[in-house]
């Protein structure tokens, strides 16, 4: 905004304030002043400095100019002249702004002493006085000023509301509570104070009650959802269920659901947030709320919730951009099935060029992750005329990965012919590992960016063993990549025979898989083996902990306790000791872990 436009905005804002003003100024005079001031602003913007003939408007314009230019002394003088000319409220508000910039708020107090007796019922002046007294720490005087105003207008909500707001602004929630309770007693209901009550309750840590008040506030004023989120975001986790209950009560306005959904994102539980919004019947408003949710959830990297919301939006208001965004997010959410579905839907609605450039990479990536290598090759072949040889080579790695996921190492290698990978590419590393080439895997996998659990397991193995080759272990990882966990567990156990220097790790990998598969008997046998035969190995504390958990699941608390105690006493430096202590306490206290 240019400075001239800024000046116009300021003057118009000021004019708007004046238009709302009350008895501090003569009404008819102000109606004229408003028009003159607005006109003056326009002139100011156009020609600078053709001014109105109205002296009050001119004085205000000058004071505003000085304030905008940072000439505070001049601005103070200007606003004083405005007051002297009869425009008390804008003059006082102007002084309040300038003095607050200079941190000289107490200089305003004599002005209040002069103007309040003249306009004792003026809410703007009274509010400014309360703000100033609270800012300079004159609490007792602020209380007296409030009481004086309240006694003057016993049936008016304004004194209570304004004083409560001032107190809340200064983080004095308990004092605000007292004022609001007085209002309830005096006025009979708190409908007009529901916003302040919500803020006050949040300030006092009364989270559920605050949520209730925010819900009430949003029935009349639906745009308070952002304020609700800001107010309730600090709710401690233990009190969040209460907030959820209030904001989901039957009859709650849409804003309450939206606020709760955003709160859930802020609390790290975006999927719960989407569960709040998902049941809403789609309408333009609801879809708009869903889109806002998508933006917020994506910023929070809550991929699964973002995906779900995009799927719902695409269903309610199908369009290629939403489908494509949904496909990309689905890949981030590790959901290639949905990604493929959405990518193909987007592809059907786009022209060939955009399909090739925007849709196909996502479609191929989804197919690769699903292990649908043949389909991936067909998609690529179909696009071959447009891509050319060079373009096709760019997808060789994706096709190779698709064949790896399909469990065909030979075809993966074949896919890479003509497009050799860097020796340190992760795909090379996995191919080496699957073929039992530990040395090649060792070299390539260590360069993997942001390694997942599978890479960590592989790296643990290749770094633990000094051997160069281990075909059975490679086959175990290949089974895992194919999603055949039962076979993988058996192979890992078998591989312990070929890699004796990593036997405890291989048994542990097998045991972890069996535990995840809920094959408790097999898992317990393996954990016992690690704990007893390899008591000096790094995996021994984990084996003890899992052994204890297995016993606890079988109802053998005494046995579980014995193993937890053994872990704590035998491996005091293990990172699992705090967890073992916690589980030991839970056993002793009979609480659920």
């Amino acid at each position, binding site marked *: 905004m240019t400075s001239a436009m800024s000046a116009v905005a300021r003057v118009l804002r000021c004019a708007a304030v004046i238009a709302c003003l009350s008895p501090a100024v003569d009404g008819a005079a102000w109606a004229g002043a408003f028009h003159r001031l607005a006109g003056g602003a326009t002139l100011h913007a156009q020609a600078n400095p053709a001014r109105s003939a109205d002296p009050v408007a001119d004085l205000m314009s000058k004071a505003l100019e000085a304030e905008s230019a940072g000439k505070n002394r001049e601005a103070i003088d200007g606003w004083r002249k405005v007051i002297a000319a009869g425009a008390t409220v804008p003059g006082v508000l102007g002084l309040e702004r300038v003095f607050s910039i200079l941190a000289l708020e107490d200089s305003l107090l004599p002005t209040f002493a002069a103007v309040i007796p003249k306009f004792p019922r003026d809410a703007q002046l009274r509010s400014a006085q309360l703000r100033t007294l609270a800012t300079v720490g004159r609490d007792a005087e602020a209380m007296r000023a409030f009481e004086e105003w309240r006694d003057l207008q016993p049936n008016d909500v304004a004194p209570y509301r304004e004083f409560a707001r001032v107190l809340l602004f200064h983080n004095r929630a*308990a004092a605000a509570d007292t004022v609001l309770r*007085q209002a309830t007693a005096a006025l009979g209901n708190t409908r007009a104070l529901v916003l302040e009550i919500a803020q006050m309750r949040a300030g006092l840590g*009364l989270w559920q009650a605050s949520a209730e008040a925010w819900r009430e506030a949003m029935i009349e004023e639906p745009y308070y959802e952002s304020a609700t989120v800001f107010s309730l975001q600090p709710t401690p986790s233990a009190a969040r269920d209460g907030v959820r209950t209030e904001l989901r009560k039957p009859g709650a306005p849409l804003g309450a659901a939206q606020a709760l959904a955003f709160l859930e994102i802020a609390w790290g539980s975006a999927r719960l947030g989407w569960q709040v919004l998902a049941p809403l019947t789609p309408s333009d408003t609801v879809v708009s709320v869903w889109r806002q949710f998508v933006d917020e959830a994506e910023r929070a990297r809550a991929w699964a919730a973002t995906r779900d919301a995009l799927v719902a939006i695409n269903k309610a208001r199908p369009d290629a951009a939403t489908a494509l965004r949904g496909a990309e997010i689905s890949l981030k959410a590790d959901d290639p099935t949905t990604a493929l579905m959405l990518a193909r839907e987007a592809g059907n609605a786009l022209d060939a060029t955009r399909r090739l450039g925007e849709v196909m990479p996502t479609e191929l990536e989804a197919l690769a992750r699903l292990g649908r290598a043949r389909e991936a090759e067909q998609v690529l072949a179909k696009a071959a005329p447009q891509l050319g040889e060079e373009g096709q080579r760019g997808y060789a790695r994706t096709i190779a990965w698709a064949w790896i996921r399909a469990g065909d190492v030979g075809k993966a290698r074949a896919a890479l012919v003509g497009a050799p990978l860097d020796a340190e590419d992760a795909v090379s590393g996995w191919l080496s590992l699957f073929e039992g080439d530990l040395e090649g895997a060792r070299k390539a996998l260590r360069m993997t960016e942001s390694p997942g659990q599978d890479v960590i397991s592989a790296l643990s193995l290749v770094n633990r063993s000094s051997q160069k080759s281990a075909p059975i272990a490679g086959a175990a990882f290949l089974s895992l990549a194919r999603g055949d966990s039962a076979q993988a567990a058996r192979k890992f156990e078998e591989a312990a025979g070929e890699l004796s220097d990593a036997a405890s790790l291989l048994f542990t990998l097998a045991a972890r898989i069996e535990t995840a598969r809920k094959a408790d008997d097999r898992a317990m046998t393996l954990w016992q083996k690690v704990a007893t035969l390899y008591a000096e190995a790094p995996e021994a504390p984990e084996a003890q902990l899992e052994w204890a958990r297995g016993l606890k699941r079988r109802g053998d608390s005494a046995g579980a306790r014995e193993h937890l*105690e053994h872990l704590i006493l035998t491996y005091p430096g293990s990172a699992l000791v705090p967890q073992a202590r916690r589980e030991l306490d839970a056993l002793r206290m009979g609480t659920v872990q």
Partner: protein
Amino acid sequence: MARWWMVATCALTVGAGTARAQHLLVPMDDAQANHLKAYGVTFTALVDGVRSEWLLNYRGGSFLLPDVPNLRRAAALAGVTFEAVGPDRVQEMRREISEGNMDAVPLEKAPRIAVYTPPDSPPWDDAVTLALTYAGIKYEKIWDDDVLDTDLSQFDWIHLHHEDFTGQANKLFLGFRDAPWFIQARDRDLAMARTHGLADIPALKKAVADRLRAFVERGGFLFAMCGATETLELALASKGVDIAGPFADGTPMDPDADAKMQWDRSFAMQGARLEFAGGVNSMSDIDGHQVNVAARRQPLGTYTLFGFSAKFDPVATMLVQDHRTVIADYYGVTTSFMRKVLKPGVTVLAHEEGAPWAKYIHGSYGLGSWTYLGGHDPEDPQHNIGAPPTDLALHPNSPGYRLILNNVLFPAAKKKPLKT
């Protein structure tokens, strides 16, 4: 009274001079990883019949235990920090203790602990049971039947759950009269009153309060928190006076109740004024914070523990052993005790600087003693009904909870007077 302390301390010093055994020093300053469980380990030593020492004001109120395998194991399992110290180091420590405001107090036997609490209440309903359970200290639960019908001298230490001894259920009828748990508790208490031939719940709770007074008078140790402190005082002082509102016993409060209170029967307070308004959730002007009356509610600050002479005032010193002297305050039905209503003989153990109230007080009555700590849960400042329990595993170094556990060990240190 101070004489036996001096004798005990001298005996210990002489004994230590000839001791060859190694010791375990359980530091209670910032070196300690789990202050709360350290009390449990020391308690285990006492249960095992192993004599220990409480080193008052030495490294936050440390414990000196004999180096026996069972204790090493208990400390390791609990995650309690300990240092193995040889005779030379022990001698050095004793010299340091003798030269400063410190003392070594022998802990003789594990106190028998009872907690006055409804039979079905879970451990996390009350800060004391929570602390005892977390620290691994065994206790028995007692309820009205036990207090009225059994010999309380079988216990050394009784803790009072946040009960309302005026029989008005903390005036919770104002907000919870239709809540199933409230109705259930009221019906249970009324049935109990009738079983004992008493007309109503206020009469039952007053009878219980009287028995507790007799327990202290005969040498017992009483510890109360939250609303149990204030209401026990009111119940004791109101013998023969109706101080319960009509919602509790069907009759209005005696309009002259303030004048008829017999404060010579209470432990700590005198001249307090009762709250006559049934709709105001307050019992009297004893509590400084009045958390449930918005217009009177005072904000939470911090409270400061007083320092006492370890050699001449060991009891008070034991009760304030802590690794922090300034602790964040927390609300309860009764959060604090107005100084203006404290009897002259009451020892203030902690107060809020510049405020007209005390937080933590102690005193003797007959042959026994009592201690009151205001507030409900030291790690849950705004405790609300229905709020989830505090997980002490997240607060193993809580200075507020240490004060509770000081009270548990304190009877182990004191020589028991004969009960009649």
